[in-house]
């Protein structure tokens, strides 16, 4: 006789489903519509609930957790403002294809549409910034919908999924049956690439005289770092990573030519401009990467590998498109390349590398090391040295983000955690908290700026409550640095509302939250301060570095310019062609 199924209330089903899905952490904030669920959370200990201080913090923390672990981040918020506060974090995850499952409370089904207290059309509001969303109208659909949500969020090109649960659904009861597998007739992501296309790509790859490998966040999402590294080493071709793809190939490897794009290295961008075969792997030709599309890779035949067909040839026409999971396609490519009689053109490649080294000799990332005032680049460089390049580093958005990307070479995937697509200030601190919860024994640093940092500063409380000792390095230049930089370049130095007046005393602020605060004003004190902070293993430390106010991020391609039209520094201000 079949085992009789249990009858459970919706709120119990919610908790059991998370447990059966293997979820360990739930980031959330209670409120009226989710109180039945919170009552059940109180009675169980399979899932640890992390009480954030603002719903935006919940989504960013879950997002950081997901980026570091490769597992879905899970969020629970209430209806109305709980849901709307979560939207920025949902959109952040959407733009970077991060698997999140966000549960939002909703008013009871009979109240929906009545402008009830704390009611918003959560499905409507989140529709454009989720991979998919569900409104659960009947408790009988709850378990299956949760399974679908996790499946959709984590498969194919990952992304956030919202599940909106009305309060009465959490009170109603039904048999509990959590499906092991789910099959959706309307959703079947491609995994294997087309063998004919892969063969064609292999042929083109081997015919290249000036090849470039350009890989993005898709490699990290597909957990294909090993395959990418093997593929690149097999060929010996130069490789560049996008901002989202850093760490997928070891940055200290001699084949790595740095990040590309607006603030990428000279050699990476010139390599893009002059290459004859471009191998794009899990990268989406974002405008910050391509610059002016008219001038993009004018001499190249382009191969693009992506799991999402709509990413292929969206911005740039592609010669050999391959739809498939990057990991599978690379594995197939590697096995073809290994058995292929043809080999890369060693002579042409030698010439190409010589050209690369000439470009590299310009030392595009050099900065003034003689000043006593703290150069922000120096802080990042020291952090890299002192953590032996092995920390998890989150960032916010702006100049400090670019310096982190330029001066902290990542050798492993999932270590560099930032909001690339949406560019969300306030991301870094909660994201670091999420990472630290996933990896309590690892060093987790948040490189931020004084403007970004305060956008989610309230999460310092959460850090204390759940004992997540992260190290925050605030590069404090008393400006919204990137805004100031653009105003200097493009608005004749009219610094309209980019100056941060009336800043708090960050040391006292850290202390008032129960953490350690430091203020560092001289270049010679940087190393000591970071050492001291890292030694305080069980404390969250906020390092307030008073940095050079006028430092700009170089090199730079101005918006609308081509890869070959880079500015290297302000004193020469030369455009190189």
């Amino acid at each position, binding site marked *: 006789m079949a085992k009789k199924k249990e009858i459970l209330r919706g709120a119990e089903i919610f908790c059991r489903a998370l447990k059966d899905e293997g979820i360990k952490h739930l980031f959330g904030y209670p409120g009226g519509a989710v109180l039945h669920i919170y009552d059940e959370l109180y009675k169980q200990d399979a899932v640890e609930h992390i009480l954030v201080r603002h719903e935006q913090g919940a989504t960013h923390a879950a997002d950081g957790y997901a980026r570091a672990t490769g597992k879905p981040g899970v969020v629970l918020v209430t209806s109305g403002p709980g849901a709307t506060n979560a939207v920025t974090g949902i959109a952040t995850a959407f733009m970077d294809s991060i698997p999140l499952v966000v549960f939002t409370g909703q008013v009871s089904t009979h109240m929906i549409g009545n402008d009830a207290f704390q009611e918003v059309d959560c499905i*409507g509001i989140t*529709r*454009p910034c989720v991979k*998919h969303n569900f*409104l659960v109208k009947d408790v009988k659909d709850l378990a299956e919908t949760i399974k679908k949500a996790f499946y959709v969020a984590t498969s194919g090109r990952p992304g956030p999924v919202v599940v909106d649960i009305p309060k009465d659904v959490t009170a109603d009861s039904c048999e509990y049956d959590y499906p092991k597998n789910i099959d959706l007739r*309307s959703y079947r992501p491609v995994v294997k690439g087309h063998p004919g296309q892969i063969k064609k790509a292999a042929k083109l790859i081997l015919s290249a005289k000036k090849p470039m490998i350009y890989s993005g966040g898709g490699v990290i999402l597909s957990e294909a770092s090993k395959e990418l590294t093997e593929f690149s080493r097999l060929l010996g071709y130069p490789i560049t990573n996008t901002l989202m793809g850093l760490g997928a190939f070891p940055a200290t490897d001699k084949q790595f030519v740095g990040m590309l794009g607006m603030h990428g290295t000279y050699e990476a961008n010139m390599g893009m401009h002059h290459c004859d075969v471009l191998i794009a792997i899990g990268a989406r030709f974002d405008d910050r990467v391509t610059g002016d599309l008219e001038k993009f890779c004018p001499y190249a035949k382009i191969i693009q590998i992506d799991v*999402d*067909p*709509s990413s292929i040839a969206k911005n740039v026409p592609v010669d050999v498109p391959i739809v498939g999971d990057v990991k599978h396609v690379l594995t197939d490519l590697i096995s073809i390349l290994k058995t292929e009689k043809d080999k890369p053109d060693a002579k042409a490649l030698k010439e190409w590398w010589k050209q690369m080294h000439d470009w590299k000799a310009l030392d595009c990332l050099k900065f003034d090391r003689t000043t006593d005032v703290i150069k922000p680049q120096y802080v990042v460089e020291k952090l890299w040295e002192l953590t032996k390049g092995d920390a998890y580093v989150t960032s916010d958005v702006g100049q400090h983000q670019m310096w982190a990307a330029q001066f902290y070479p990542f050798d492993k995937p999932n270590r560099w955690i930032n909001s690339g697509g949406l560019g969300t200030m306030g991301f870094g601190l909660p994201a670091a908290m999420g990472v630290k919860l996933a990896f309590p024994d690892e060093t987790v640093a948040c490189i931020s700026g004084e403007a970004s940092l305060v956008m989610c500063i309230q999460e310092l409380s959460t850090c204390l409550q759940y004992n997540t000792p992260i190290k925050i390095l605030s590069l404090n230049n008393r400006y919204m640095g990137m805004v100031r930089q653009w105003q200097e370049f493009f608005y004749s130095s009219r610094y309209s509302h980019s100056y941060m007046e009336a800043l708090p005393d960050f040391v006292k602020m850290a202390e008032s939250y129960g953490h350690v605060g430091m203020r560092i004003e001289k270049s010679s004190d940087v190393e000591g301060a970071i050492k001291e902070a890292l030694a305080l293993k069980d404390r969250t430390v906020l390092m307030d570095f008073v940095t050079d106010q006028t430092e700009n991020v170089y090199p730079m391609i101005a918006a609308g310019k081509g890869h070959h039209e880079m500015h290297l520094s302000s004193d020469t201000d030369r455009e190189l062609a």
Partner: protein
Amino acid sequence: MRHILSLLMENEAGALSRVSGLFSARAYNIESLTVAPTEDPTVSRMTVVTSGSEQIIEQIGKQLNKLVDVIKVVDLNEYRHIERELMLIKLTAQKEFRDEAKRMVEIFRGRIIDVTENTYTIEMTGTGEKLDAFIEALDDSMILEVVRSGVSGISRGDKAIQS
């Protein structure tokens, strides 16, 4: 160029808004959009008439396919196909104009489906062009109301687009 896209999608609440939202969010054109359930009540058929360069049309197809509720997307322009649209049109039809209105309806193979002392209501199907031609053939002052269904399309021959 004008394209007719035929979609099969899950007959779920909100599916229509996912499609219309996609078109507005990505600034794609919609000339017309029709939707109704098929012989399988869990599946809806949507017909979207849109226009754009080949590259845009390709993107629209891919973006529609990416929607989790969408089962299938077919560009009917790639097939030999038939398109039809239904129009209901109300005309003033008084005294000496009554006969002329009736003749026009016959020429265009419409049907008069409601009659009052002053008006005719006409049902007419055909391609959008034919319906346009009928409207143009009438004196503007005769037209009281026009209701058009938007385009439905189906491929010719044995091939059927099924889920």
